[in-house]
């Protein structure tokens, strides 16, 4: 899961990014509305955390532009503005959730996971695929009822596949959801991660669709 964090307070942005990364999220940080707007419009993110009072461009106008240009990524507004009229304005501009500062970071993580899960079309918090189960609320994987230990990269790849189970995810799409914007991406590294995941959950669970990408499948019954 890759998240765009648009927050002008460097210290807060750093704190949130650190906390999100600890929960396996890939995080890109933009320090102003202009950069944030540009990143959200051009890069692929699973969700965005958007402050409203931003330098250069206000968060509301950034959000409106995203929606106007068809960007439907889930957006969590994280702001100091706590008036109900401001919340209404935020939702009217296209926000999916709204959290007021100061906040508990667990709340941000939980809400982001829920947003990504709902955007992928899963109403329930628990997503299963054969013996594999993903608690999208807690962010934990189980295999045959036992906790599955994963690295951050493995978690990002598997959660992306899990939320789109039985559907082919293009390789480029997967890479975009796994690596942060400024990461040095080795073109073969995604294969390395897929290989490690196959060893953990069973090679037959992740199919390679030649020329297109990967698919997580429950396999033939």
């Amino acid at each position, binding site marked *: 899961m890759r998240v765009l964090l648009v927050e002008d*307070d460097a*210290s*807060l942005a750093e*704190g*949130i990014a*650190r*906390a999100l990364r600890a929960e396996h999220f890939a995080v890109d940080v933009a320090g102003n509305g202009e950069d944030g707007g540009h990143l959200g419009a051009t890069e692929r993110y699973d969700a965005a955390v958007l402050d409203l*009072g931003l330098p250069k461009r206000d968060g509301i106008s950034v959000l409106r532009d995203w929606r106007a240009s068809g960007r439907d990524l889930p957006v969590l507004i994280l702001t*100091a*503005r*706590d*008036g*109900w*009229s401001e*919340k*209404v304005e*935020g*939702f*009217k501009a296209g*926000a*999916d*959730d*709204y*959290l*007021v*500062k*100061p*906040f*508990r*970071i667990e*709340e941000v993580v939980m809400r982001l996971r*829920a947003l990504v899960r*709902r955007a992928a079309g899963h109403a329930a918090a628990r997503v299963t695929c054969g013996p594999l189960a993903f608690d999208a609320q807690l962010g934990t994987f189980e295999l045959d009822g036992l906790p599955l230990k994963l690295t951050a990269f493995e978690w990002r790849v598997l959660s992306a596949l899990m939320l789109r189970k039985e559907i082919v995810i293009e390789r480029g799409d997967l890479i975009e959801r796994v690596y942060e914007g400024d990461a040095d991406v080795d073109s073969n590294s995604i294969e390395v991660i897929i290989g490690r995941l196959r060893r953990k959950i069973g090679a037959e669970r992740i199919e390679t669709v030649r020329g297109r990408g990967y698919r997580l499948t429950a396999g033939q019954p």
Partner: protein
Amino acid sequence: MRFWPRSLFGRLLAIAGLSTAAALFFAALTIGHVLERFVMRGFDDRLDAQVAVIARAVRPDGTLDTARVVDLAGFDEQGSGWTWQVDGPAGQHWSSAAEPIAVPRTFARAGEPRHLRHAADFIPGEGRGASGEPLHSRTLAVPTPAGAVVVTAIGPRRIVDAPIREAMLPLLLSLLLLGFGLAVATLLQLRIGLGPLRGLQASLAEVRAGRQRYVPTDQPLEIAPLVAELNALIDQNETGLTHARQHVANLAHGLKTPLASLALKLSESGCDPDGSLGDMVRQIDGRVRHHLGRARLAAPGGGRRVRTLLAPAVTDLITVLLGIHAARAVEPHMAIDPDLAVAVDPQDLDELLGNLLDNAWRHANTSIRIDAALMGTTVIISIEDDGAGLDDAAIAEALLPGRRLDERGDGHGFGLSIARELAELNGGHLQLARSPRSNGLLASVTLPAR
């Protein structure tokens, strides 16, 4: 010591009353005087004619040739009050009266015979007869080689007094009527003239009560500049309040971001082992939110009561709450007439209903009902959830500022008390009770309809 009444009405009335009374008094005096002179002239002419007739009968030696004396009409009747008398230079005395009447020497105003000796004019005089009746005289000094002969004709004053009285009575009555008319006109003038001031006071009261934004500018020329200044003052006041609110909001928002950073740092392992620092951050946050809420309450929202449609406002808030509380499967049921509107600033309405709906959402098990009905000049909005509800003690507690019965989520903790204050600030009120239908909490807000 205060000479003037405090009210403008009283002052203007006093000035108008005093000046009218003085003018009427002066008019009565002048007209009376002119009238008296007019009537007196006829009287004097009669006396003067008699004096002239007698003067012709005066001989050069200072004696009177009584054979040549002719008594004109009135003088020929004894006891009519018309008499004449002649005083010769040697002390002789002639008179028309059977018994000479004791006319004092001072009868003539000029008095002294010495003066009369050389005077050629008729001298008027006033006096009283033997029985005390007022008399009027005309005296002429007729010069002779032997000395001046003083000829006096005397007539009864009542001859002129009666017609003067007859003429003065209707005149005074007319003046009295005129005075009454002027008094009515003055009262009317003051009432109409000072009307705009009363209107101005009523308009200002409307502004203060929030039913009008400005004092109407369609005013008389003399008041228009005052109204313009008043409206400018209203604008200045509003701008000042907006600035102050903005500063409070900026301060609050400015504090929240570093506060969020601080909370985040504290939540990272090891920084706050017993959670006391986190509690302090939450306390600071609570106070910031509380005072931000209070600053919003102090807004001149009431000063610009607009027509805010209820249904769209509630629909927008439901959209927000469905997003914020997406994790809770609560279904809202709204039944509000789309034309129903309240006289409340849209932001105030959002804040009021947002807090109540948020509270309902937090406590509802499965559903929330939002109804609104027009009751005369008010709109009653009911928000009821199917949660556990509150007992009477908890309801009283919930409406106290800063109390927080619910520790779940990021509730403001004073949502209900803020909602109550907002309702009251906008001329309504908030009531909490147990819902008879769902057994949960029923919040009823009464607001002025528009």
